[in-house]
């Protein structure tokens, strides 16, 4: 055997070896990212505000919430404890809680008590300004009201102002039973537990563990409820993985079956698998090295790439079938040019996708370009030398049959040209007209029904905060406070006048800087404690001058102000602490949380980045970003066509280039039109499918554009490729996730169309064609 033949497989083996090594290095760490949000561009926020936003986001992304029911609070608490043991033992969570001390509120009371004359609830602060007598009247109503009072508390807080303030700090408090928070509803009692998944909790094996722990818990305590972003992610990833492995497995099974049936012997099949595997390996390795990890969407697209990557080997073996006696090396020489052209034009198309300002798509671009190159290199380097010298199975009958179709189909179309063109034009016009953009992010994940139901029930049991919020930034502490204060004033207006939201929580509403604390104490003295109305109030309750003197003395004795840090320590509330981003050289930042958002447009309109006021709505932003992205990608798709067209023009001249490009272009239009008729949405994923279709269509076109004597084999290759890929994408189109179904359907339609159009456009009969040239 000549030495020249040995070099190819050796080079290939080296390539595979390097790729495996490089891939293994990267797979040591966390490598898969299935968080939909992380493929989006980051919000434009000041540097220190971003850290605050991310910390807040993490509370949502890492946390799970569990509720176990019982008929009474004590049983619920006991079950809640048992649940916590189960969760802790599962080793999935870094923190299982909350561990609440029943004395915590008492401690807060004691810590804040010395400052009670400087800390007023926002409502009382406003009353003090506008109508101080109302503070007295409400206190009287409270004293003689149905709630009674305990003298202990009243001694310190004769007007209940401190009670109001403490209430404003904790507007929603669950009662504790044996240290566990208990929610009560409809005679049932629910013990609440939160559990934070460990960092790296998104790794695949961890996700399925999380789902199985959830199943165990629900079996052990029927009626228990669970929700949380990690579960949605895990369930989504499980679904996507299931569907993607279906495609992968069916694509491979189809390749294996067809190769075994057609080409005889395992060798061609194994080589085709080697080519596809090398491609996927190269794609994965390149993505991991460029980006450090791979997003689920990259893997999804990668699985679809199998269908394109296998084309090169299909084409090689079909040509070999057609020319049984040919030396594989000679065949490689023949095929090098068309296959290289197919590769370059597809790769350029995918790389155009990488220009999108969207991390997820850059990954797809790199994955596809490297993956296709890997598959192509395998066919060029290893396949010819390893394909053996044994003559392939005799398939002349099949080739003749295919040849008949290849010549007959364009001829038939030619005869019915007018009718066909009219039908096509009508289909395209009406279908494309019916096509409407659809970028609703909810279609991108379809959580299992049980998860959705439980999430809604929990929402009904526990008032939970909205995931949307404001970030306020100021260059100095003073500017920050003024800005946040201005924002809360506008929020309150929306809340009071329009009911646009139920409530908000802002640090500046509960804590004021030292000068304001002192001013407030002064005003409180002037308008209430030293005012005759206070003496009259005490007298109505039968208290004399001694009590009056005592209260005034207490007011005078309170002198210190409470710094923000000390206040946060005294309040000792995790969620309030999370709202404070602190001050550094970039300025000060805080977070204003919202609840019960009904008119989000009006609230969002309060955002004013120039005044350091940012409204963060990641979920809503996703839909908007997806729409922008779809438009960008559509333009980039045109760019990809132009690039491919340029390459094809350089190789084949402008007229042929147009004919070749016409195959994917027309196939895409047909697919879109049919999609329009089937009421499919036209979203980001559809455009992504059109990218794949560009690669596939160009492959088909180039195969068909070879010299006439190789066209029967080319037709066989195209039909084979179309059969395998449309089978796997057809399966995808049955998916319950709208996104995946749209992706599969677009490709199924497009591939069938491309296979039918390719013989018409790419291989249009030319004058030198000799019908019936096959012996």
């Amino acid at each position, binding site marked *: 055997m000549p030495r020249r033949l040995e070099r190819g497989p050796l080079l290939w083996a080296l390539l595979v070896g390097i790729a495996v090594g490089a891939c293994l290095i990267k797979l040591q760490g966390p490598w898969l990212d299935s968080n939909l949000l992380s493929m989006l561009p980051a919000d434009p926020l000041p540097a220190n505000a971003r850290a605050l936003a991310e910390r807040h986001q993490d509370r949502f992304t890492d946390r799970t919430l569990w509720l176990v029911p019982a008929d009474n609070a004590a049983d619920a608490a006991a079950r809640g404890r048992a649940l916590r043991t189960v969760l802790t033992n599962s080793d999935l969570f870094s923190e299982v809680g909350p561990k609440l001390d029943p004395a915590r509120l008492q401690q807060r009371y004691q810590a804040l008590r010395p400052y009670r004359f400087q800390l007023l609830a926002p409502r009382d602060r406003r009353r003090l300004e506008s109508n101080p007598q109302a503070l007295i009247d409400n206190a009287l109503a*409270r004293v003689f009201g149905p709630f009674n009072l305990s003298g202990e508390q009243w001694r310190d807080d004769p007007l209940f102002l401190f009670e109001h303030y403490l209430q404003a700090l904790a507007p929603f408090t669950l009662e504790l039973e044996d240290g566990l928070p208990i929610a009560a509803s409809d005679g049932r009692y629910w013990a609440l537990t939160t559990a934070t998944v460990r960092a790296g909790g998104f790794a695949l094996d961890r996700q399925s563990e999380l789902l199985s722990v959830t199943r165990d818990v629900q079996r052990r305590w029927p009626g228990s409820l669970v929700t949380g972003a990690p579960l949605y992610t895990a369930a989504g990833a499980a679904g996507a993985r299931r569907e993607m492995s279906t495609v992968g497995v069916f694509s491979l099974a189809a390749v294996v079956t067809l190769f075994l049936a057609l080409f005889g012997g395992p060798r061609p099949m194994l080589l085709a698998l080697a080519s596809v595997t090398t491609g996927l390996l190269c794609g994965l390795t390149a993505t991991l090295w460029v980006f450090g990890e791979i997003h689920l969407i990259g893997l999804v697209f990668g699985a679809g790439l199998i269908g394109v990557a296998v084309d090169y080997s299909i084409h090689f073996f079909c040509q070999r079938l057609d020319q049984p006696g040919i030396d594989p090396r000679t065949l490689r020489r023949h095929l090098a040019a068309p296959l290289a052209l197919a590769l370059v034009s597809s790769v350029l198309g995918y790389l155009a996708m990488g220009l999108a300002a969207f991390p997820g798509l850059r990954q797809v671009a790199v994955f596809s370009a490297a993956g296709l190159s890997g598959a192509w290199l395998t066919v060029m380097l290893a396949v010819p030398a390893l394909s053996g010298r044994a003559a392939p199975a005799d398939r002349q009958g099949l080739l003749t049959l295919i040849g008949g179709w290849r010549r007959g189909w364009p001829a038939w179309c030619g005869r019915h040209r007018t009718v066909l063109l009219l039908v096509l034009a009508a289909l395209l016009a009406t279908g494309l007209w019916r096509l409407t953009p659809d970028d609703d992010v909810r279609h991108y994940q379809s959580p299992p029904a049980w998860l959705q139901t439980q999430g809604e029930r929990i929402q009904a049991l526990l008032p939970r905060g909205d995931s949307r919020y404001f970030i306020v930034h100021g260059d100095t502490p003073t500017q920050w406070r003024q800005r946040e204060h201005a924002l809360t004033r506008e929020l309150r207006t929306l809340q009071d006048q329009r009911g646009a939201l139920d409530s908000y929580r802002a640090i500046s509403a509960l804590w004021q800087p030292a000068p304001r604390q002192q001013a407030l104490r002064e005003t409180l003295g002037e308008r209430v404690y030293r005012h005759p109305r206070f003496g009259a109030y005490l007298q109505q309750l039968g208290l004399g001058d001694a009590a009056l003197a005592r209260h005034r003395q207490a007011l005078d004795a309170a002198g210190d102000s409470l710094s923000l840090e000390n206040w946060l320590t005294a309040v000792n509330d995790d969620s309030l602490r999370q709202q404070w981003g602190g001050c550094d050289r970039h300025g000060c930042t805080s977070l204003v949380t919202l609840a019960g958002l009904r008119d989000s447009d009006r609230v969002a309109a309060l955002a004013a980045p120039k005044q350091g006021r940012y409204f963060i709505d990641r979920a809503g932003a996703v839909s908007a970003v997806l729409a922008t992205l779809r438009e960008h990608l559509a333009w980039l798709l045109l760019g990809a066509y132009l690039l491919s067209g340029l390459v094809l023009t350089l190789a084949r001249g402008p007229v042929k280039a147009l004919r070749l490009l016409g195959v994917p272009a027309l196939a895409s239009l047909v697919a879109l039109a049919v999609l329009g008729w089937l009421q499919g949405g036209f979203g980001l994923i559809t455009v992504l499918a059109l990218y794949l279709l560009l690669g596939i269509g160009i492959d088909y076109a180039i195969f068909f554009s070879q010299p006439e004597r190789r066209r029967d084999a080319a037709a066989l290759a195209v039909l084979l490729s179309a059969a395998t890929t449309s089978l796997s994408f057809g399966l995808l189109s049955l998916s319950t996730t709208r996104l995946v179904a749209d992706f599969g359907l677009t490709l199924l339609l497009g591939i069938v169309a491309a296979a039918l159009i390719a013989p018409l456009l790419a291989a249009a009969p030319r004058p030198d064609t000799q019908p019936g040239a096959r012996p």
Partner: protein
Amino acid sequence: MKSLVAVFILLAGSVVAHAGELTLEQVAERLPDAPILRADFRQQQHLSLLPRPLTATGDLLLAGDRGLLWRVRKPFESEIKLIDGTLYSNGQADTLPGGEAFARRLMAVLSGDIEALKPHFHIQAREEGDEWRLALTPRNDTLSRVLSGIRLGGHQGPEFFRLDYPNGDYSVTRLSHIEYPDTLSDDEERRFATPP
């Protein structure tokens, strides 16, 4: 042995009672099955802090699904409304002391809703003359820090209740002119309408 059983029953939420005592079911049977309670009240609060008890009189209206109207006539006029978990003092939204859970419990006491009280209190029932009496002790720490016990009783529905605080303070509220109408009057409907 008998007292041991009694302690056990008390701890278990006591459904069965001793001879001479009532079961909770027997009390529940006596309670009127009415959606609305209308009554005058006289409330006396005995606080160690004050030289003499605070006395207030007025009328109240409790409509199970709507809320509570509490109108003080003497020593001066004021009104507290509790509608859909929100408290209004003299027509203005105000802070609800003790939160919504506490308000629900108060309404359960006023209406003698044993089922709603059972999970939060150990309940002991007995008979005094021809009146029933319930003694409630909080089950959980949160509540027992602010309230040491509740006693209530009456012929049919509750006619009085007494709240005891850990520091020895207590308050007694007596109801009179009790009515159990089926519907609210127009005026009462208006008063239940959420203030602007």
